[in-house]
Every structure is written in C-alpha cells, then in structure tokens.
C-alpha cells in the first residue's frame, strides 16, 4: 500500500519530498500473483506467474502447455491425410495456413512440389491470405477489447465473420476447414466466390479504416502501447522470433519474400517492418499486413488460371467418385489411400511457410509407410512467447495485457 502511494505521489503528483514516509514500515517482500490459466486476457490458456512489487513486475514465469493435445503423438497413429484435421487445430485462427504448411512439407518429402497444379497453388495462396487476415483481425480486435475498446472488437469480429462465411462456403466449416490435401486442395472455389471475396475485402477496408481511426491516434491506446514491451532487433534474432513480432523490431524476415513458395513470387506486395519493437509497432505491422494481404488477394483472384485443383496421381489423391464407383483401379486406389495412407518415401524433411505468427515449420520423418514416423511442428508463437520472460520484468501488471495480446500467442499452436 505504502509503496503504491509512494509511486503515485512521485509519478502522478510529482512530489519529491517524501520524508514523511521515513518512519513508515514498508513491506519488503514481493507478492506472487497468478495470471491465468483461466483469465480473460490469457488467450488460449497460458499461465503467467508474476512476482510483483506493487504494480511492477519483478520476475515472471510463463507456463504453457494447458492446451497440449499431443498433436505430434497423434500424428504418428494417423495416415498422412488424417493429420489435416489436427493441423486445423494448431493455429486455430488461421487454419488454412497450417493446412498449407503441412501439405507442403509432405509434398516436399514426396518431391512433387513442382507438380502441384497451378490453380491449386493459387487457391492455397488465396485461402491462406484470407486466413492470415482473420488471424490479424482477431489479434487486433482482442487486444483492443482488453484495453477497453469494445467497439473495435465488434467491428473487426463482424468483419472476420464475413471472411469465415466465405471460407465456410469453400470448405464446409468456419474454422476447422481441412481444406488442403496432399497434392492440391479438396474442392474448387464455388461459383461467384471471387466476387463475394472482393466485396468482403471492401468491407474489410471500411472496418480497418474505422479501427484505425479509433485506435492509431487514440491517446489512451497510444499511452498503453507506445514504448511498452520493447523487443530489440538483436533479441529478435537471438530468440528466434519471426512474423509480425520480429518484423516490428526491424528484423525484415518474411518467408514469402525470402524463400518464396507456391506462387508468392508472382505477386507485388510489401512487408511492413517496424522500428521500435514495442506493442504499437506490432499492432501497426499487423494492421498494414492486412492491407498487403488484400493486395495479394486482389492480384491472385485476377490471375488465377483454370485447371485441376489436385494432382492427377491416383496414388496420391483420391480419384473422382465417378471413377471410384465404376472402375476397379480407382476403387483400389481409393481403398488403399484411405486404409493404408499414401506412401511417402523414407526420409526426413523440414518445410517452412509464413504462418500467421511467423515461420511455421513442419519437420517430418517418414519410414516409407502410409503414416509418419514423426511429425514435429515448429510453432512460431513458441519462440515469440519465450521472449516475454525477458520483456515482462520491469513492466506493470497492466502492461502484461497488451504485450501478451500483441505477441498473439495462440494456445493451439504453442502447446500443440
């Protein structure tokens, strides 16, 4: 109590003479506080044990694992295709990006990366970028709400809902799409979908503009975010940070630009890079990334070719049902693909793509069977969250909320 008083008197009232407190018995111990795992601001259940002195954090211990669902172990008991629903539930606010990342890893092991039909690659980029937009919208909306900006939350979540409606049209589910398959995607874009997407992108622009007006020059928002949770560029490199968190520090690394995959090298887009590495920079990077994703989407929608949406090999992709029900070859192919799983030659591979939070890597080991021997995920927010052990000490308790929010730790991805 006395400590808080002292701070308030010094900071708020600018008093310099606090000699009247000399004989006051000040507490000398710091207080342990638990934030989470069941906490409105601890997204995806994580627990941060804090040791505080007054409001200031002395030490913090970030304890993850509350959402560990043994993805890697389950993957060992499933065929290669059965793992797609599991990948949906990794970064569950941008599931298409997980689907795509995993499919590309298996395709790399199968050495068919160059044989994926062009239309399928465009579709993967399109749905991936839509997922990226939903990821960033969720992050900004939730963080803003935790700082008190409820209106922003509703605007952006409504926008997210329109995007999810589109993804539901394409895949059948708002969130758990399982849309991508090894060799392509499972179904083509419905008729009129491109027009609907362009329409929604217009609405996204409106919503972003509203959010921007409500937040970017908002004194309360700026005071809470500016200079808070600063990560240096060297720390970003040293701790293995990627994604908007790393780019906000000035580390210009984006897998889509540095190691282009699918058809990203055909599109004209920029990668926003910050300078201070504070919460505001992270917010600004994400906001700008949404605009850039929309640029990619517009280019992709106009340039998407006609053609197959999945590779033409019955040993990798299910044959058309008309064939399956009427020819023995397709029936056998269908049967073996489902029961045994497609045969991936023995070997190991690390494949990485730009997920919503950064470099999403899949390390696969195959023994030549229809299911993986090992399927490891490199979750980008694992490293991103780890840096908080350095960043949090010295912050106020109230600063934990926007800092943690802007790291965008998704429990499903971090804990798997």
């Amino acid at each position: 109590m006395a400590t808080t008083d002292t701070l308030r008197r010094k900071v708020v009232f600018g008093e310099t003479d606090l000699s009247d407190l000399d004989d006051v018995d000040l507490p000398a111990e710091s207080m342990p506080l638990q934030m989470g795992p069941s906490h409105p601001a601890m997204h995806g259940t994580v627990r941060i044990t804090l040791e505080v002195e007054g409001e200031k954090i002395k030490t913090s211990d970030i304890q993850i694992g509350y959402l560990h669902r043994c993805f890697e172990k389950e993957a060992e008991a499933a065929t290669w295709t059965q793992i797609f629903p599991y990948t949906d539930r990794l970064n569950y606010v941008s599931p298409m990006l997980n689907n795509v990342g995993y499919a590309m890893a298996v395709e790399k092991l199968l050495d068919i990366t160059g044989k994926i039909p062009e239309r399928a690659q465009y579709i993967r980029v399109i749905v991936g970028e839509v997922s990226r937009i939903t990821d960033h919208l969720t992050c900004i909306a939730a963080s803003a709400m935790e700082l008190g900006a409820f209106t922003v939350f509703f605007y952006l979540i409504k926008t997210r809902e329109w995007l999810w409606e589109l993804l539901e049209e394409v895949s059948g589910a708002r969130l758990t799409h399982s849309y991508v398959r090894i060799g392509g995607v499972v179904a083509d874009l419905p008729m009129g979908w491109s027009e609907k997407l362009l329409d929604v992108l217009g609405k996204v622009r409106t919503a972003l503009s509203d959010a921007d007006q409500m937040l970017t020059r908002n004194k309360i928002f700026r005071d809470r975010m500016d200079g808070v949770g600063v990560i240096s560029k060297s720390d970003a490199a040293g701790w293995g940070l990627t994604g908007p968190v790393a780019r906000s520090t000035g580390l210009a690394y984006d897998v889509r630009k540095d190691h282009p995959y699918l058809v990203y090298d055909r599109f004209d887009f920029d990668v926003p890079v910050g300078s201070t590495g504070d919460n505001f920079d992270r917010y600004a990077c994400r906001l700008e990334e949404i605009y850039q994703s929309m640029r990619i989407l517009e280019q992709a929608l106009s340039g998407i070719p006609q053609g197959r949406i999945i590779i033409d090999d019955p040993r990798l992709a299910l044959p058309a049902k008309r064939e399956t029900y009427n020819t023995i070859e397709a029936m056998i192919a269908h049967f073996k693909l489902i029961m045994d799983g497609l045969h991936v030659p023995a070997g190991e591979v690390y494949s990485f793509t730009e997920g919503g939070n950064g470099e999403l890597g899949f390390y696969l080991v195959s023994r030549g069977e229809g299911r993986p021997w090992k399927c490891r995920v490199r979750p980008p927010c694992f490293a991103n969250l780890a840096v908080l052990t350095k960043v949090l000490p010295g912050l106020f308790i109230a600063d934990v909320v926007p800092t943690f929010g802007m790291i965008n730790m998704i429990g499903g991805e971090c804990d798997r």
Partner: protein
Amino acid sequence: MAAETSPPVETVTVRIDGHEHKFPKGTNLLEACQSVGAKIPFFCYHPGLSSPAVCRQCLVEIKGSPKPVPSCYTSVADKMEVSTSSPKVLDVRRQMLEFTLLNHPIDCPICDKAGECSLQRHYFDWDGMLARNEGSKVRKGKVIDIGKNIVLDQERCILCTRCIRVCDEVAKAPELTMAYRGSHEILTTAPGQRLDNPYSLNTVDVCPVGALTSKDFRFSRRVWELQATPSVCPGCATGCNVEVHASRGKIQRLVPRPNPDVNKHWMCDEGRFEYKRVHTDRVLLASVGGKRATFDAAIAEAARLLSEDLSRARDKVGVVFSFQGTNEDNHALLRLAVEGLKIERIYAGGRPAGWSDTILVSADKNPNTTGVRRMLPAGLRSIKDLTADIAKGVLSTILVLGNERVTLAPGTATAVVALATNKGSLVDLASVVLPVAAWAESDGTFTNKDDRVQRIRAAVPKAGESLAAWQALSQLGAKLGVPLAYASPGEVFADASQRHAFMKGVAWEPPVPPVLLRFGESRG
C-alpha cells in the same frame, strides 16, 4: 555350415539392378531378387508350391533375352544381368496389372480380402493408371458354395492356379480345376467333386484375392482390425505353427505361420477351428460343490480336501496331468503334486486319438503328449486306468489338470479338484472347480511328436476369472506348504527347462507385441 561331408555349395554371381550378388546355384531368381531388396510383384508364385509362371506379373529383363522373363520360373545363372526396375519392366508390370484388373469386379467394399489383397497392394505399389476400358466386365458366378468350408467368387479369381496347386501338391486331392479359356476362364471343382479335402482352407490363405473365402471368417471382421500373435496349434501332436488373429479380445481366425521344419506353409482345417473352444463353453468362475465361489475360497477348499486326504491316506490321492496343457503347467503340477505332496498315483490324459495322414495330421490329438511323458516317471497310467481305479474305490481325491472325461460311478465318493478350461462332465462332478486359461491365453511351450519344444503366446486376455494353471497351482501350493514362487511364465519355463533334459537349450524369447494388421505390410 556344419556338415563337412556334403560338397561345398556352388555359388553364382548375378548382377541385379547394377549390384553384384552371390547366390547358391539353383536359387530361384524371384527369391534371389526379393532377398536383396529388389521387390518384384507376383501372384501365382508361392514358395511352397510349384511355379507355373501363369500370371506373368514377375517379368524382369535379363540381358541377352529378347523378351522379359518370368523370374519365378528362372534359376540364377552365372553372370546373369537382371533389371527389375527399368522403365520397360515397370511398364510391363503396369500392363500385366491392367490385364488382370480388366474384368475384376469392384468388390473391395464387400470383399473379405480387402486390406490383405495382393491385387490391391501391387496396384498401389506398381501401377498408377486409371482404367482405360469403358466396356462392361465379363460376368461369372458370384457366391458359389464349392465345399464344406469355402465359398467361391469366380469373378474375383485372377486365374493364378495357386489353389489348384495346393489341392494337387499339398493335399494330394485334385478337386479344383480351371475351365474354359480366355476371358471366360473360371475356377471350378473337377466334375463330380467338391472342395472338401482336409487342407481346403489353405486355398483361402494362398488366394491372392478374395475369390476363395472361408465360410467361418467371412464378414466377421475387417482384417485391419486384427492383431496377429504367433503361437502353435493345439489340435494334434504335429504342432503346426500358427498366427492367432484376434480383435477386441476374441479370436477371429487361425492362419498357418511358415516353418520349414514343422508345417512348411500349411495347416489342416481341423486345426483352424481350434480357436472356437477358447470362446465356447468356458468355465469362467470358480465353484465349490457346484456353487459359485471366489477363487480364493475355492483354493482354500481344494487345499483343505487335499491336505485332509493326504494326511489320512496318501496312497488314495491321485493326480492327473494333461496332454493338452503346456510344459509349464504340467511342470508346476509335477513340482506341487509329485515332488511336494508326494502323491504316488499319477495319471495323464488328453483327447482321444483320431485319424491321421502322411501330410500333417497326427493321430494323437494332443499338443503336448511328448512333453508330459518326458517329464513324468515311467509307469504313467491312463484315463482308462483312472476310471477303473475310481470304480474300484481306490481313490478318494484327485487333482485334475485339464478337461478329462472322467466318469464317476454313482455311489463312489471321490472328490475331484479340477483345473478346467471348458465345461463338461468333469466340471459337473467336480467338488472344486478352478477356471484356468486356455491355450490361446497362455504363455508357455508345447512339445510336438518330434521332441520339438515350441513357444505359444497369449493372444487374448484370460476369460472370466481364470488364471494360468501354474498360477492356480502356485496359490494351491502356498496353502499346502509347497511354495512354488513363480511370478511369471518365464520363471516356470526356466525352472522346467533346468529340470528336464528335453527342454534344455530352448529359448524362451522375449515378448512379441501383437502386430496390428493395419499399417503392417498387407499380407496375401
């Protein structure tokens, strides 16, 4: 190589896919390639049968030969250069598969063989083409009852003739034949014959597709749900090696396990049905005087009966060993009854003798007669002697291992302590019944008629409250002051093999986890 009297084996050098290998002269080329990892698909070849080279699936290119050569029909020759994966060979494989699949019905969803079908496996591994023919398929007979145990589907048959060769060469009963020619060729029984030789179910094993299916196993389980455990058939003293296929704690079928010394690749039909008694009419609960009791109470009562009689008149107590029990169970009984309790009246029995032939079936329908006889002293008395002795009133109590058909004349007061697996006359007249594990629930060894000690493994959990017989006997021994401190079947085996000469030098071998047939290599 031990025998120095035979001449050294001549080896030839063969070049397979660019790598040189040495093989003994006369090795089959297909086997040679498989052994070095150059996989070749085949349908009609079988290591236990003659090789007719009808399916043409195993064609390989040999340098100097104008046409591709069936590797199952060729022996290795010196300086042979074989190519098993050149583009031409792969193309030939695809073509042969295309022909085979041309008239094959689209039965996978209803075919038993799905999951262990050679056609599915080879198509998926070697062929990636979808169908090119638009026309309809040739129709043939679908569900034809050709014998006691087998159903034939002529459309699925790929005309490999393996079944015909099994009947001709293994069962020596030429009951099957091909009829007609070309795309109308069908498998059928020879005029006036049915497929009911005692080895008919081997045709189901060798059939690469689902043309021949077992009436017993049809539609009972999908094969990828099965877990395979190696064991030995308890049907007769031959001791054919089998694989027990079980799912959800119940055995679904038995298939032979190859053993060149005992049963090659085959087993008889009667042996295949030996799994039924593991799940039928089992004694599940212990009982005293016909009324349900806990296992401990039954043990206590058995101990009481035995110790009373032993103290009163030891020579009126008898012990019955079982030719159906494992070496370990019988050994535990030996340690307890003969050595510990000094019981002098020793009997042994099993199932009555039956028919036999020169192929696999022994007349002795018990798996462990040899083992029991070797363990026990000479002068072993039979069940007939037992019945006579009971009728004479010579015995007051008997401790019985197994399900012997013991008859008690009315009025004779003989108490029976039975360690039984199945219900029957013994269980009905027993004073104390202790349920024990059946053959497929036990880990132990059987000794076949040629003194071969073979390991059996538990494939399904023990039924009801049964324990392994040696476990029940250990508990009984503890109550009777004969401590048999066996904690695991391996310990019983170790004790037994140390004591009995015929078991020396036999390895217990570590536990084998059951192989789930799904995700394993497709069989067939």
